[in-house]
C-alpha cells in the first residue's frame, strides 16, 4: 500500500475526486440494474461493480487528447473519462439523448469529444482497432497514447495475438490493459487460460514491456499507469498491463453467478476497492466522515437526476432508424 507521502502530486481534492468517481460508477450500476428490472433497460447489461479502481486509476492519468478503447463492460470507463451520467443512462435506455443517440446501447458507448473511441461487444475486436488508432498517432507524428481495455477472456482470441504482435513490431503507442477478473462469462479463467496466474507474461512472447497490478487499489493502478504512459508517450513502444480484480456481480444482470465458490466471493468482497480506498483516506488522515457523506449525497443526487433524465427523454424519432448509416449519402431502401 502506498502512503500519502508517495503521492505528493495528488491534492486532497484529487483524491476525493477519485473516491467520488468510484462511488458514482458503483451507484450508477446499482441504478442501471434497478432500471433493468423495471424494463427500462433491455438486452444485455454488464455492470462494473468491483472493478472501479481500474477505470478511475488508469483513466485519470491520461491527457485529454489521449484515446480510450474498451469492451462492452464500458460504463465505468465512460464515466471515469467524464461522460455525463445522464447521457450514459439515456443510452442504456435507448433514448435519443443518449451518448450514441440510443443506437448503440449499453455495450456501445462512444464520445467523439472525449476521444472515447467506443465500447465493443465482439470480444477481442477492439485490440486491433486500438492498434490502428495508435498507428494513426505515430503516422501523424503526435504523442498521444491509446489505452485499450479488455478482459481476460479476450486473451484467448486470435485478435489479441495479432494486435499484440503488430503493435510490438511497429512500436505503436498503445497500452493493452487487461481487466483480469478471473471469469469470461461463466467460465473460470483457470480452466480456459493456461497463463491465468501470470497473465502479464503472455507479452513476453511479443517482447513487450509487461506489468501486473492490484486492480482493486486505485492508487497503485494510477502510480503504475503514470509511469507506463510516460514510457509509451516517449516512444518506447507498447505495453501490456494486467490488473487483478474481480467481478462482484454476474457476467450480465441475467447471470446469478452461482458457479463461483463462496470463499472466493467472500475474499474478493473484502477487497472491494471502494471501502478500501475510503479506509485509506481515513487512515491517512486525508478525509473525514463528513467529507464522505457530502460526496455520497452529491452522488445520490446525480444518479437520481440521471435516471430522471433517461426516463423523461424522448425515444429517437422513427426517421432516426435510417440516420447515420453513411456519412455522405442516404441509406438505401428507405420506405417511401
Amino acid at each position, binding site marked *: 500500500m502506498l502512503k500519502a507521502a508517495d503521492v505528493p502530486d495528488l491534492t486532497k481534492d484529487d483524491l476525493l475526486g477519485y473516491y467520488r468517481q468510484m462511488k458514482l460508477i458503483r451507484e450508477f450500476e446499482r441504478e442501471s440494474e434497478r432500471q433493468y428490472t423495471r424494463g427500462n433497460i433491455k438486452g444485455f447489461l454488464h455492470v462494473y461493480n468491483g472493478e472501479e479502481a481500474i477505470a478511475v486509476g488508469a483513466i485519470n492519468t491520461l491527457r485529454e487528447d489521449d484515446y480510450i478503447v474498451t469492451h462492452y463492460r464500458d460504463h465505468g470507463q465512460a464515466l471515469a473519462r467524464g461522460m455525463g451520467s445522464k447521457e450514459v443512462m439515456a443510452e442504456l435506455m435507448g433514448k435519443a439523448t443518449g451518448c450514441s443517440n440510443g443506437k448503440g446501447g449499453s455495450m456501445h458507448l462512444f464520445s467523439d469529444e472525449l476521444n472515447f473511441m467506443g465500447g465493443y461487444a465482439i470480444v477481442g475486436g477492439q485490440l486491433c482497432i486500438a492498434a490502428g488508432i495508435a498507428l494513426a498517432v505515430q503516422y501523424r507524428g503526435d504523442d498521444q497514447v491509446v489505452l485499450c481495455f479488455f478482459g481476460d477472456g479476450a486473451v484467448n482470441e486470435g485478435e489479441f495475438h495479432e494486435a499484440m504482435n503488430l503493435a510490438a513490431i511497429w512500436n505503436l503507442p498503445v497500452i493493452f490493459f487487461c481487466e483480469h477478473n478471473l471469469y469470461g462469462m461463466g*467460465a473460470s479463467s483457470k480452466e480456459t487460460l493456461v497463463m491465468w496466474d501470470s497473465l502479464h507474461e503472455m507479452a513476453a512472447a511479443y517482447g513487450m514491456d509487461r506489468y501486473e497490478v492490484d486492480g482493486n487499489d486505485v492508487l497503485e493502478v494510477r502510480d503504475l499507469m503514470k509511469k507506463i504512459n510516460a514510457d509509451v508517450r516517449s516512444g518506447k513502444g507498447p505495453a501490456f498491463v494486467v490488473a487483478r480484480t474481480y467481478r462482484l456481480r454476474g457476467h450480465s444482470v441475467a447471470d446469478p453467478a452461482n458457479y463461483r465458490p463462496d470463499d472466493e466471493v467472500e475474499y474478493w468482497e473484502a477487497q472491494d476497492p471502494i471501502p478500501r480506498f475510503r479506509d485509506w483516506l481515513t487512515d491517512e488522515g486525508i478525509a473525514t466522515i463528513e467529507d464522505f457523506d457530502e460526496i455520497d449525497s452529491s452522488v445520490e443526487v446525480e444518479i437520481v437526476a440521471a435516471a430522471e433524465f433517461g426516463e423523461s427523454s424522448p425515444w429517437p424519432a422513427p426517421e432516426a432508424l435510417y440516420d447515420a*448509416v453513411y456519412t455522405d449519402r442516404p441509406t438505401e431502401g428507405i420506405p417511401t
Partner: protein
Amino acid sequence: MSVITYRDAVSSVLREALDEDERVFLMGEDIGPYGGAFAVTKGFTERYGKKRIKDSPLAESVIVGAGVGAAMAGLRPVVELMTINFSLLAMDQIVNHAAKIRYMSGGQFSIPLIIRTVTGAGASVGATHSQSFEGMYASIPGLTVVTPATPSDVIGLFRSCRELNDPVMFVEHILLYGTRGDVPSVGDYRVPIGKADVRRTGKDITLCGYSRMANVAEQAAGILAQEGIEADVIDLRTLRPLDSETLVNSVKKTHRALMVEETTRIGGFAGELVSQIQEDAFDYLDAPIARVAGAEVPMPYSYPLEMAAIPSADSVVAAARKLVNGR
C-alpha cells in the same frame, strides 16, 4: 405427442446424440458448468463429464477448426458458436476449410461436423449481436444449412443432420428457445433435410419464411384469413439444399408470392427465392413477387427503432393485402 420448449428439444437431441454415439462430443464457450448461454446444456457436464462436454476458451476459430480436424479423424463433433454473430471469427474455418476439404481431397475426407449456432434479431442486444447470417452460409457449396422454427423440427432435423457425413450449420433462433410445441414421441421421427413444411394451405397467396419468420408468416396468415385472404404458408426449414419445388408449386397454385425474412433485403436469402420463382413459375404470376425484410441498417439498440427494423405479423399482413387487393 407431448408439448415441450424449443430449448428442451435442442437439449434432448444433444443428449440423445451423446447417449447413442461415443464419437459425439460437444465443444463451445460456456457450455460446461454454466450450462450454455441459452441454458441448452444445463447439467451436461455432471452427466457426461469433461471429456465429452468441452468448455472451450473464447476462440471461435479453433472451436470450429478443431471440430473439423476431429471430424476428419473419425469423431462426430457437435460444436457451438454462441451466436451467429461470432461465427464471423470462425468464418475462415467454416467456409475455407469445413466446406471444402471433401471436395479438395477428391472425396477422401469427409467432415461430419455439426455447428450449432443462434441467429436472430429482436432481443435488444444491438447492432453486433442481432444479425442473421444463415443466408450467407447457404451460399456456400459444401455446407448444409438448416433453420428449425419449432421443437419438432429441431428434433427431426437434428436427427437427420447426424446421419449426414458433411458439415452442417444448425441455426437456432434467439427468440424461440422459450416457445412450445408438440413433438412426436416416436424415437425414429425424422424431418428430411431439404424438405419444406407447408404450415397452412390457401389459394390466394404464398407466404414463405424460415426460422422465426415462418412463425410470423403463419401468424399473419391467421389475420389475413379473417379478412377472407387464404394463404399458403411455407416454412423452408432447410436453406441448403433448398426445396424450391414446394415453393414453386405453391406459387403456381396461388399466383402471388411474398417472402418474409429477418435479414436485410439487399443480399438477403429471399432474393434467391424470388429468382427461383421467376425462373420456374413466371407465367403463373399475377403480381410481382414481394419481400418483407429487415431495414437496410445495422440493428439499432433503441427498442422502438428495432421493432421498426424487423418484420412483424402486421407488416406481413399489410404487404400481403397490397399484393392481393392491389392496395
